[in-house]
């Protein structure tokens, strides 16, 4: 057997965060073999990204890393070697793809120059861009990163990563910010790169489905320790460690049982939300004020929709499909160009945002934030306190949270607070804009369960926007598929998933990385 590309030997690491030194990795042993794709999974905070940075020799000096053991790439200890040596290893042996290509590409440099930094040759750059599936590569050399879509940017990042014919590509959540169809393409690309160039890939992800699709071997990181490593199929189908099992159990899949409580079909009463012929057109200016033209983009392009009282409708679509704009118009946060939205019922629309952290006012305590929602009711002080207490209890938060500020809470707790505020006065419709896409799988699952509980308890209407078909199936009685501002398919959730009528829906479904049980 050939030499491993990278060896992580009894690697321990502690970093200083907010003035406190804490242990991030503990005695990690890992070998990345030549030509293999090694998946590394774990929840946020498990230390997987830090391990990637260690392999690249890019540990943040500002957090005063203290290391034990060794991380060796191509015979060079990436923890101790001099910067000149590290640079040589990075240039000759390593390639990196990060989660957000917008921040890892230089916004002030044309694509061609950024690839050229490694290839030093335009024809080679064009060939590489072609390899990673960028069409019209010659033209793309002249553009800046912001002119490309997220998927294309990630491809450019991949082209840069493979430009130096690296022995190892470190990919840190490269598909998390991408739509499922683009994600499938990028995973395919990574596999091709491995087959064509024979390089190894360290694929860091929180999605076991992704890992199952692409990885040869799989390592599971939990609280800085490597709890399990083995052939990917074995780890996923016969997990040994309890943590791996819980990771698997918290995964949302298209086959998991749906909630029994909401199985009754919709009634014929007056709809809670009535959307008629809704249009929203954005005018985008191109070029300068004087000489540039303008272009009109229809974010929402003629949507008709009725949502029955107590019904939950999930809207799925890729980024740019107009689903969030539609939601914001229903919330009254954005104006429509034409068409109408009518809400029946009291309480107005309430909304839960993707990033709960930024939807809570950072300098207001949770108790104050919740009490504020009650101000229109003009209640007495004692009654406000009782209702705040009840609202916190309804979202399974301890009473002490009332005194805390959003910055002191975890992501899941913040989303619960946002939910408490949105539902403490039953809303006419609860609008959810990807409320769990920033959360770890287990947290996401519990927040989704909570939304269903609240729905069952106060019988509210829900409009749920997501890019994740498994989440849509779980949350919606009906699913509407949106594409370029139009609803292309709508029907009962189970039916849309099982027997999609539209080609586009089938494409979306095919791209979802599912774990297929071995029979």
């Amino acid at each position, binding site marked *: 057997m050939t030499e491993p590309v990278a060896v992580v030997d009894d690697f321990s690491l502690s970093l200083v965060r907010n003035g406190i030194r804490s242990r991030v990795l503990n005695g990690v042993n890992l070998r990345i073999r030549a030509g293999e794709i090694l998946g590394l999974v774990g929840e946020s905070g498990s230390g997987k990204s830090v391990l990637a940075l260690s392999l690249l020799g890019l540990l943040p000096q500002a957090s005063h890393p203290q290391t034990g053991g060794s991380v060796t790439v191509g015979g060079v200890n990436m923890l101790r070697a001099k910067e000149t040596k590290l640079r040589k290893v990075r240039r000759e042996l390593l390639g990196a793809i990060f989660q957000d290509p917008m921040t890892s590409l230089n916004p002030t440099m044309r694509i061609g120059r950024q690839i050229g930094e490694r290839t030093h040759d335009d024809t080679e750059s064009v060939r590489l861009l072609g390899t990673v599936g960028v069409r019209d590569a010659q033209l793309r050399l002249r553009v800046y990163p912001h002119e490309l879509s997220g998927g294309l940017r990630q491809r450019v990042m991949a082209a840069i990563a493979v430009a130096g014919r690296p022995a190892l590509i470190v990919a840190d959540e490269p598909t998390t910010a991408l739509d499922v169809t683009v994600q499938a393409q990028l995973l395919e690309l990574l596999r091709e790169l491995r087959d064509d160039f024979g390089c190894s890939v360290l694929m860091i992800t929180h999605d076991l489905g992704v890992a199952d699709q692409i990885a040869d071997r799989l390592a599971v990181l939990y609280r800085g320790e490597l709890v399990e490593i083995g052939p990917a199929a074995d780890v996923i189908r016969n997990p040994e460690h309890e943590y791996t099992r819980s990771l698997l159990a918290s995964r949302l899949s298209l086959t998991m049982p749906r909630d029994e409580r909401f199985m009754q079909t919709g009634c014929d009463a007056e709809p809670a939300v009535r959307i008629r012929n809704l249009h929203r057109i954005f005018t985008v200016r191109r070029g300068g004020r004087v000489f540039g033209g303008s272009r009109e983009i229809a974010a929402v392009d003629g949507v008709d929709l009725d949502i029955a009282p107590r019904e939950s409708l999930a809207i799925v679509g890729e980024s740019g499909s107009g689903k969030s704009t539609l939601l914001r118009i229903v919330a009254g946060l954005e104006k429509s160009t034409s068409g109408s939205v009518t809400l029946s019922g009291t309480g107005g629309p309430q909304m839960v*945002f993707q990033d709960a952290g*930024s939807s809570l006012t950072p300098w207001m305590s949770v108790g104050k934030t919740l009490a504020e929602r009650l101000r229109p009711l003009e209640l007495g002080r004692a009654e406000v306190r009782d209702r705040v207490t009840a609202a916190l209890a309804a979202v399974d938060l301890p009473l002490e949270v009332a005194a805390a500020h959003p910055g002191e809470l975890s992501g899941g707790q913040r989303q619960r607070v946002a939910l408490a505020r949105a539902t403490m006065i039953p809303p006419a419709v609860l609008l959810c804009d990807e409320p769990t896409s920033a959360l770890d799988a287990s947290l996401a699952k519990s927040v989704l369960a909570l939304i269903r509980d609240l729905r069952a308890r106060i019988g509210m209407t829900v409009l749920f926007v997501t890019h994740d078909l498994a989440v849509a199936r779980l949350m919606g009685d009906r699913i509407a598929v949106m594409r370029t501002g139009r609803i292309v398919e709508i029907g009962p959730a189970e039916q849309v998933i099982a027997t999609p009528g539209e080609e586009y829906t089938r494409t979306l479904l095919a791209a979802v990385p599912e774990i297929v049980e071995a029979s």
Partner: protein
Amino acid sequence: MTAILVPSGRLRPLSVGSRRLSKPAAWALVGLVVAVTGLAVFARQLAPYNPIQPVGPLNLPPLSPGHLLGTDGIGRDLLSRTLIGIQVSWLSALVVVASGLLIGGTVGLIAGATGGWVDSVLLMRITDLFLALPGALVAIAIVAALGSGLVNTLIGVAIVWWPYYARIVRGEVKALAARPHVESARLAEVSRPRILLDHLLPGVVPTAVVSASLDIANVVLLLAALSFLGLGQKAPAPELGADTARALSQLLSQWWVPGVPGIAVLALSLIANLGGDAIRNLIPVRR
């Protein structure tokens, strides 16, 4: 020749700030600012002599018995004059910056939160008008029109000073208003004034206070420059800039006579700048 001293615009703050100060050091600097303010407030009690009357021999050097910082060309005690001068400069600077924060902050808050034509025409074009003209010259013109004197000088400087804060606050408010927390508050049926006061204002305070604290030094320098040109305090009353200017001819023979008030201006602006940096480091980063 004297015109060289007039700050043509806003001076870039002496930035120590890219390096983070340690917490005790930051508190020490804030303490220094408080100490200077105390010195300014109690200057009349602390001054050993009447600052306007000749009280000793002419041109005594510093560390002479009875006159710690020496005396000037007509025998006035330099320590007393400098203390009163610090009082005038420092308190004036605080007044100008505070009024600028109040006016500019209000304008910026309303402009940023309202948007539309109120923002673009009424408020921001007016501030643009002020920003387009060199502040020091406009201040001089205003003082010339009102007549010289401390109060008129303060009015003149305050009039050219607030637009900067209006700009800063408006920018911050605009950025904050786009955050989901403001939209959430709107959906939670919070009234407009309450959104302004509870959900926007507290987020702006750190930036505004920090930039204002860094600005005290600029006001001290501008006031000194105006006095230097003869537009500040009337003649016998002590003023650091004017004292430096009047005694400049003695620089080579009796350096301390222009030197002491000059160094006091330097020290004040330095302390204000360092204090500003310290405050910036002490205010917790908003997330």
